[in-house]
């Protein structure tokens, strides 16, 4: 099913529409307030762009340095080409350490890999501990609809009903009480898990560290309580220095949730030392390509700067109207409409690059200044080159463009068209609108088509010139 069909379902989903309406302005308003705290947020965005570019320009070198530094501190750095390799590596690690249960904090890479299903199939129990991800897991492994707020699409009432059903307890309505209930259910899992899996917001090359930005504290428990910690993240997440991290941390929480700083910020380096009381005995990094390496140095390389804040989707009129599931894969919104075709194949996401008004509400809020509309347009060009758009659409475009290059013909065509449209608009009562437009029924499905005046500017102008 393509985006358009899914979007249609989402538009017809009354409950979802209500939930999206309530959630819409929250992140937008909070970001707007938070960016004012930084003396010059625009200059910080520029700095973020520059430093991400510097990291990506020599990605191989920084990754090598990261590997050396992390290894020196007792970690194992592994490389995965795709989702299948992620799953294989994680299951190997789990088997090596006799792991029966895994606690997870949020990781979009594990979504790319479909890791939970693979773990279950291998007889290992994955337990999502991010509240949103936990809700989705107990709801029959529903996919997240937002990269930082996985249950963006759900109401408190839906969660309440789900908890009551799953936990066999009376339904609660208060969010704090619901959270307490989740905490009670999750606590034994934290204490009994043999392995923790997390994502990584940034990898710092000079120290071999992973930076984690979370709000619930579950990340701390997942990464420090079990004896094994596995970090899964994309190769593009590496940055050279802690100084770079400081700059990006001025951008990330503000752009994502409108927070000056997230509730928890962890910088994890190496395995537990003999004199330390907690931390994992075994630390693994799985650094993933899954389509990223092909983007390096190419025409979509700017997308690799992305720090996964979600601001583009929060500010997107399309995302706000249909939610994240309409996009069909792991990443929704403008960044998803670019990443999905690049990661899964242009021909597998034919609607996504088109599903944008190019309003650039995303581009102006992106903390690392990715020109998202330009990249969407470039994907449209690729679709054209590969003839991936419907023939009817390509032909219409070519014919129109050819006529527009021939002013005499264009003048004649438009004279006829406006008269025809004006005639169509007469319905006996009014003549200012067309209710159903045969040549563009898509337009009139949800709105009228205002009638033209009935003469073109060029005719009227010529007439006026003639009189003068």
């Amino acid at each position, binding site marked *: 099913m393509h985006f358009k069909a899914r*979007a249609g379902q989402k538009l017809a989903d009354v409950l979802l529409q209500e939930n999206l309406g309530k959630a819409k302005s929250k992140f937008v308003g909070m970001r707007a307030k938070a960016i004012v705290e930084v003396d010059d947020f625009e200059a910080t965005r520029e700095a973020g762009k520059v430093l991400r570019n510097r990291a990506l320009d020599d990605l191989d070198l920084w990754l090598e340095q990261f590997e050396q530094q992390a290894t020196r501190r007792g970690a194992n750095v592994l490389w995965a080409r795709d989702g299948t390799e992620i799953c294989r590596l994680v299951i190997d690690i789990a088997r090596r350490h006799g792991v029966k249960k895994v606690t997870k904090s949020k990781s979009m890479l594990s979504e790319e890999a479909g890791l939970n299903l693979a773990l279950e199939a291998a007889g290992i129990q994955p337990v999502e501990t991010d509240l949103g991800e936990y809700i989705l897991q107990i709801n029959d492994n529903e996919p997240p609809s937002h990269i930082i707020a996985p249950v963006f699409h759900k109401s408190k009432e839906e969660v309440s009903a789900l908890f009551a059903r799953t936990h066999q307890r009376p339904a609660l309505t208060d969010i704090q009480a619901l959270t307490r209930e989740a905490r009670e259910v999750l606590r034994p899992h934290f204490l009994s898990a043999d392995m923790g899996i997390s994502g990584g917001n940034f990898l710092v090359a000079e120290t071999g560290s992973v930076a984690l930005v979370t709000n619930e504290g579950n990340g701390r428990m997942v990464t420090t309580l079990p004896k094994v910690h596995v970090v899964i993240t994309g190769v593009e997440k590496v940055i050279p220095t802690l100084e770079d991290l400081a700059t990006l941390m001025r951008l990330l929480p503000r752009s994502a949730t409108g927070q000056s700083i997230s509730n928890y910020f962890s910088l994890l380096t190496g395995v537990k030392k003999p004199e330390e009381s907690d931390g994992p005995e075994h630390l693994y990094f799985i650094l993933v390509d899954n389509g990223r390496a092909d983007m390096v140095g190419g025409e979509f390389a700017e997308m690799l700067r992305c720090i996964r804040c979600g601001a583009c989707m929060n500010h997107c009129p399309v995302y706000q*109207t249909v939610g994240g599931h309409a996009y069909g894969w792991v990443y929704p919104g403008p960044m998803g409409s670019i990443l999905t075709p690049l990661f899964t194949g242009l021909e597998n996401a034919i609607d996504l690059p088109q599903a944008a008004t190019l309003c*650039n509400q995303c581009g102006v809020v992106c903390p690392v200044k990715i020109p998202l509309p330009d990249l969407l347009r470039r994907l449209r060009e690729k679709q054209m080159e590969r003839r991936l758009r419907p023939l009817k659409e390509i032909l219409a475009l*070519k014919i129109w463009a050819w006529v527009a290059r021939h*002013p005499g013909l264009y003048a004649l065509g438009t004279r006829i*068209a406006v008269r025809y449209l004006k005639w169509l608009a007469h319905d006996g009562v009014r003549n200012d609108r067309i209710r159903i437009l045969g040549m563009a029924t898509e337009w009139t499905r949800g709105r009228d088509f205002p009638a*033209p005046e009935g003469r073109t500017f060029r005719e009227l102008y010529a007439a006026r010139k003639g009189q003068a």
Partner: protein
Amino acid sequence: MRVGLFVTCLVDMMRPRIGFAALKLLEAAGCEVVVPTGQTCCGQPAYNSGDRESARALAIKLLEEFESCEYVVAPSGSCAGMIRTHYADLAGESEALARRMAALSSRTYELTDFLVNVAKFDKVPGDYQGSITYHDSCSGLRELGVKTQPRALLAQMPGVALHEMEGAEECCGFGGAFSVKFGELSAAIAEKKCDCIRATGSDAIVGGDLGCLLNIEGKLRRMGDDETQVLHVAEVLAGDAKGAR
């Protein structure tokens, strides 16, 4: 000042009166206005659909028609934005063409931006009796920085009361071909815009881009709102719009 008026294909077909209002305003600002008769479209529909070849051909056509003008002015932030911010991208390998495109781009303006910042226009000829709310079109706002210019001009009209709507800078859902590729979705976004417009209780919604205005008008009428006027800022400034009061 010799100004080339780029009427835009939508105004040419749908609302010639906006073209004449723009002409009147430019002349009132003391410009010598030329209207190249062979003009058609800036190429944006092709460019945004991924048809770079057609977009380039149309860009070269427009360049040749308007290059002799001191300025190019369009009653549209979207078309002016296309010329100003994207033509350079269409020049391709040819350095000579790139130079000509860059020269044209730097002389191209959206109407209200030109009137305020180049012509320093302070004698708005028309008046309008009524309350309005202003929709900031995406390209004008985010590509060209058109925000205060139309408001500064409207403020010169004593009969106009401006009531800002919530989310004035948010997209109306038009998006060119998007509006016919994803009609239902486009109209759903337009509905939110129309709700914000109606919440201000204004007599008219005014904007600087006909694409957005047709989208908004079509949605308002479908929602059963026959009262709210939908006007281009040029019509209001020129005094061509009949006031609500």
